[in-house]
């Protein structure tokens, strides 16, 4: 059965649980990181903004107090150079060329008044002028030719020109990128580690449950004396195992009681029946007159019918309680059906009934031979008793992937609507039936106990149709090597 599952791990609950747990864990840690990242980025931004504002204020001050001559240019350049060295976390490997800071003084229009930085400063000026509005707080500025934006602070001088101090965000972004890379690596590690732990823990836990399930299903099919494996642990799984075993104890007790009762009932009824039958038979063989023999013969017949009724009703009772004792053997349904039809064919043709078998060949099931024989003979008895002359009974046998399907249909009047609904209940029979009304209840009970099903309906053309399915017996090589190895108690 388990061989049909394509990939047992992908279909296990452990897999699903660990998948969801990992997903929740991953999302949670990701959110925490996002918040941290945001906090760090803001902090860095604030620090650099404060520095920028401070520096540009100093420069503005210097510019205001220094005369507008060459000395002024030198002083400002010095201050700007100085500022550029104070940039936090500057890459040591970068070239001598200082492209992380620029200083620029310009009026609202006209050329650059003063420029310190990489290049000629024109793209920077263009970018600043492209901004429609000036602001006192630092802002981001994208400059053509530079990969990273600049953070720019400005101050207005008395002569109407502005001093702009720009600080590349390259280093800041690098810090944040390093942070992200490290986090992602760590995050992947933690998440996969967590997933593995969750998966193995749940798998181990559910492994116990699976063992129990397998054991329990085998118990249902074979004997009731086995028990599911229990662990010493006092958790839910251990509790489940113990509860299951308690339940099995009770079921075994109940079934045992049922057997005791039915056996006692059968025994107590059979002994007198045997005695009566024996006496009648002895009388019959003592050369009685023909007119005396007649009532004795019919008494024996009635006794046999009573015995059959007793057997069948006890079987149905046990089968309904899932307590029928089966001794399963490999049975070829094709062979069985043909044998049965061979037995019934003369009686059928005497009654003017046709019978035909359509079978796709050997169909093997694992079943109790005696019970299955009785099932088929019950069905054919039914047809023989109820079908009007000139009708035909068809037995169709085939198999699909894992079920054997036997359809018994006829072209007679079909089932009564009111009877059909209760067809498989005990004591239900058609008006003209002489039987004890157990036939189909017995069929249904036996088939169900074998893991199959019975359905009854009327064909479109009007006849009755009974379909029986039984699990196919596949001569799997490992089927034999799977004896019950179960922990007791």
């Amino acid at each position, binding site marked *: 059965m388990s061989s049909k599952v394509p990939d047992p791990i992908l279909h296990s609950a452990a897999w699903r649980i660990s998948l969801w747990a990992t997903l929740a864990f991953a999302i949670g840690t990701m959110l925490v990181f996002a918040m941290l990242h945001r906090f760090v980025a803001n902090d860095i931004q604030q620090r650099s903004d404060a520095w920028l504002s401070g520096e540009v204020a100093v420069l503005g001050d210097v510019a205001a107090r220094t005369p507008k001559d060459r000395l002024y240019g030198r002083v400002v350049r010095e201050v700007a150079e100085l500022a550029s060295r104070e940039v936090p976390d500057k890459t040591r490997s970068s070239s001598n060329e200082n492209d992380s800071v620029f200083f620029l003084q310009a009026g609202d229009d006209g050329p650059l008044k003063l420029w310190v930085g990489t290049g000629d400063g024109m793209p920077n000026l263009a970018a600043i002028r492209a901004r429609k509005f000036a602001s006192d707080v630092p802002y981001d500025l994208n400059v053509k030719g530079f990969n990273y934006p600049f953070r720019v602070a400005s101050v207005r001088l008395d002569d109407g020109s502005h001093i702009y101090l720009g600080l590349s965000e390259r280093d800041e972004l690098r810090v944040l990128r390093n942070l992200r890379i490290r986090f992602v690596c760590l995050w992947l590690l933690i998440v996969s580690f967590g997933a593995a732990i969750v998966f193995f823990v749940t798998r181990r836990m559910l492994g116990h449950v699976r063992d129990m399930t397998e054991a329990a299903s085998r118990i249902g099919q074979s004997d009731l004396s086995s028990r599911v494996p229990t662990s010493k642990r006092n958790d839910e799984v251990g509790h489940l195992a113990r509860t299951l075993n308690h339940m099995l104890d009770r079921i075994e007790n109940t079934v045992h009681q049922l057997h005791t009762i039915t056996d006692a009932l059968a025994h107590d009824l*059979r*002994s007198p029946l045997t005695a009566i039958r*024996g006496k009648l038979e002895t009388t*019959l*063989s003592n050369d009685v007159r023909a007119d005396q023999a007649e009532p004795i013969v019919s008494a*024996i017949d009635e006794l046999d019918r009573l015995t059959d009724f007793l057997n069948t009703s006890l079987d149905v009772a046990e089968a309904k309680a899932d307590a029928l004792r089966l*001794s399963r053997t490999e049975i070829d349904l094709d062979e069985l059906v043909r*044998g049965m039809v*061979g*037995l019934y064919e003369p009686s059928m043709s005497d009654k003017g009934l046709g019978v035909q078998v359509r079978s796709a060949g050997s169909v093997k099931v694992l079943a109790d031979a005696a019970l299955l024989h009785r099932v088929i003979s019950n069905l054919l008895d039914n047809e023989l008793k109820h079908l009007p002359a000139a009708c035909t009974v068809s037995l169709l046998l085939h198999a699909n992937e894992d079920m054997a399907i036997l359809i018994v249909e006829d072209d007679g009047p079909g089932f009564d609507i009111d009877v059909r609904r209760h067809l498989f209940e005990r004591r239900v029979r058609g008006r003209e039936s002489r039987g004890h009304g157990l036939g189909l209840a017995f069929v249904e009970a036996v088939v169900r106990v074998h893991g199959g099903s019975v359905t009854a309906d009327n064909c479109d053309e009007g006849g009755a149709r009974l379909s029986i399915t039984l699990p196919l017996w596949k001569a799997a090589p490992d089927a034999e090597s799977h004896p019950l190895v179960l922990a007791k108690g």
Partner: protein
Amino acid sequence: MRLLLVEDEPEIQSFVKQSLVEAGYEVHTAEDGTTAIQLASKHVYHGLIVDLGLPDQDGIELILQLRRSGVTSPVLILSARRSVDDRVKGLELGGDDYLTKPFALAELLARMRNLLRRNSSPPEDPTRLRICDLELDMLKRRATRGDEVLNLSPQEFVLLEYLCRHAGRVVTRSMLLKEVWGMRIQPDTNVVDVHIYRLRGKIDTVGREPLIKTLRGIGYVLKGT
């Protein structure tokens, strides 16, 4: 031949004993396991009939005990249990047989005879069976009555063969179902009878001595006068 009948129900014991005695056996009876063991240690029995529900012990235990003490004779088990115990089946595989109650006396006798024969003499020559002017050639699977070849289906031949092998003795419907068709069923229709009628129609043709006789309520017997 001496038989031991172990059965605690006095009524059943009495009529089984009676019919066994009528069939020509010497019969000892025991009501419980202890008596049975004592008897078996004093006498040699050719066959045993043991009821499984004994007052003092389980019939299976008794049989195992007898086997341990060296009794090798065949055992016919009588069981009032419905589904036959696996252990009984085990015994059956070991060469013994069982009957569930209620049973036909004719069947009990037939089974007992089978067991005793299985145990004693080697099987008779199987190639040719002859009852009166009915002859069965087992190799050619052909039956003749006088000089007329009978047109039998393979199934009918097997049925006739079984009747011939038990010629002169009663065979019941359930025996035929089990031995000829290999089924332990009790159909509540006359399926077996129809087979017998058909066979009779081919063998006991008008003008010939009828060989297959019906014993109403019991079964059939094939015998010549």
